[in-house]
């Protein structure tokens, strides 16, 4: 299986690897996937409540190169966006950007789920769980 250059790039130079403080009020944490499936993504966002903008994002992923690339890209994309803009990110955008083959599309779906899960977690903390 040949990887696209972008997948290789994200794998070799992943953006925003790391962790934010889960207990911090401004942080939302999404944890999706399962070890038995071979894919687990943790994606965290730090949101500025006043502006509703995502100031920072970090990720950690257990999964194949495409999964790592999808979640790395997701953190790049959500930074500087509002929550609504981040919620609008579709897995198909990720597929296109990374040229993911059909067999790897589910990696992009998981990344989209991770974004939504992180946002949902932040909203729960702030009593505004519109989902």
């Amino acid at each position, binding site marked *: 299986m040949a*990887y696209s250059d972008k997948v290789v790039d994200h794998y070799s130079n992943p953006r925003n*690897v790391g962790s934010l403080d889960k207990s911090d009020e401004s942080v939302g944490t999404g*944890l999706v996937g399962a070890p*038995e499936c071979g894919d687990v993504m943790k994606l965290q966002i730090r949101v500025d409540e006043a502006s509703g903008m995502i100031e920072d994002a970090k990720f950690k992923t*257990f999964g194949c190169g495409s999964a790592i690339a999808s979640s790395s890209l997701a953190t790049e994309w959500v930074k500087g966006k509002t929550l609504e803009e981040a919620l609008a990110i579709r897995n198909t955008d990720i597929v296109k950007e990374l040229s993911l083959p059909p067999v790897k599309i589910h990696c992009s779906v998981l990344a989209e789920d991770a974004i939504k899960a992180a946002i949902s977690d932040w909203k729960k903390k702030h009593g505004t769980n519109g989902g």
Partner: protein
Amino acid sequence: MAVRNPIYMDNQATTPVDPRVLEAMLPYFKERFGNAASRNHEFGWKAEEAVERARKQVADLINASPREIVFTSGATESDNLALKGVAEMYQEKGNHVITCVTEHKAIIDSARHLEKQGVRVTFLPVGKNGMVDLGELEAAITDKTILISIMTVNNEVGVVQDIREIGRVARARGVLFHTDAVQAVGKIPFDVDAMNVDIASLSAHKMYGPKGVGAIYVRRRNPRVLLSPILDGGGHERGMRSGTLNVPGIVGFGEAARIAGEELPVESARLLALRERLRTKLEENLDEVFVNGDLERRVPGNLNMSFAYVEGESLLMGIDDIAVSSGSACTSASLEPSYVLKALGVGEDLAHTSIRFGLGRFNTEEEVDYVTDKVTATVRRLRELSPLYEMVREGIDLKTVKWAAE
């Protein structure tokens, strides 16, 4: 330190053709291109002579008579012929076959094919070490059992079954015993008489011979085994396998067998030392790594290891100048994790983290050291990326986590 780039360490998948084997084959592509079945001219006679010489070389490797060796297109065909050929020939005697869950797909799918035709098949489980339980085998035999098929060495984890004992049990109950010996022959001593084997599948490309040629050993005495052919045609190979013989391939197979037999004692000791060097260094460098399958009852060149919290395909990507394989779902065409590891009770999470290293004749100590360093560095890097490793280091028991799986 000069290591080849890329390094090939996937010798269970296939092996490079030994230069000596290639040399032996070339004339049979060039001047000696005759059909071995052409009885009336020198082109045919020379080809036939070469085939018969190779037949003896293959037979000698497994302590059989040349008349008991039938050449095929490979072990998949031999496995098909063993199961289907016995089932059809002995259908009056019975319709029950016993095999094992960790067999190669060529056996499992042939067995499933037989099931569709009304044959009952028992798939014996294996223990955590990958071994078939002799008591369970014995208990499974009925008066309708016509064949037991258990592979000698498993291709994924390298575990060696107790073939001699299985054969003894089969003999005592009057049941034919077939073994897929593909990963065993040329790597460990294999003797069809000492091991009570009635039928065996062999493959050239797993022992530094060419692809596209293999053989099936079919016992002629005590008992005499008969097989219904699965290929009809000119009646070649005593009617058991029609089709013009792949003369150059067979010549290569013979030469590969000769070399394997001669070099086995020295080579297997060398490979064992290399394997242990790889294993112990990785275990020293990294925590939470696990060998899959029995370490003692194992073919020397195989090391199947799980690297917890790091997914297999991502590990392979990080060692992209090293050729190995993985039991991860992402690396399989079916997106299922390895069924062999599953049968050994390796949890799916660890199956996804498994790498199979297959050391062989052309691997060196320098290569092993390079691989050890590269794998160590990549695992460490990927563990920094791994949410699972992070959770474990925080003291979380992953088994208690409720995962929001897709």
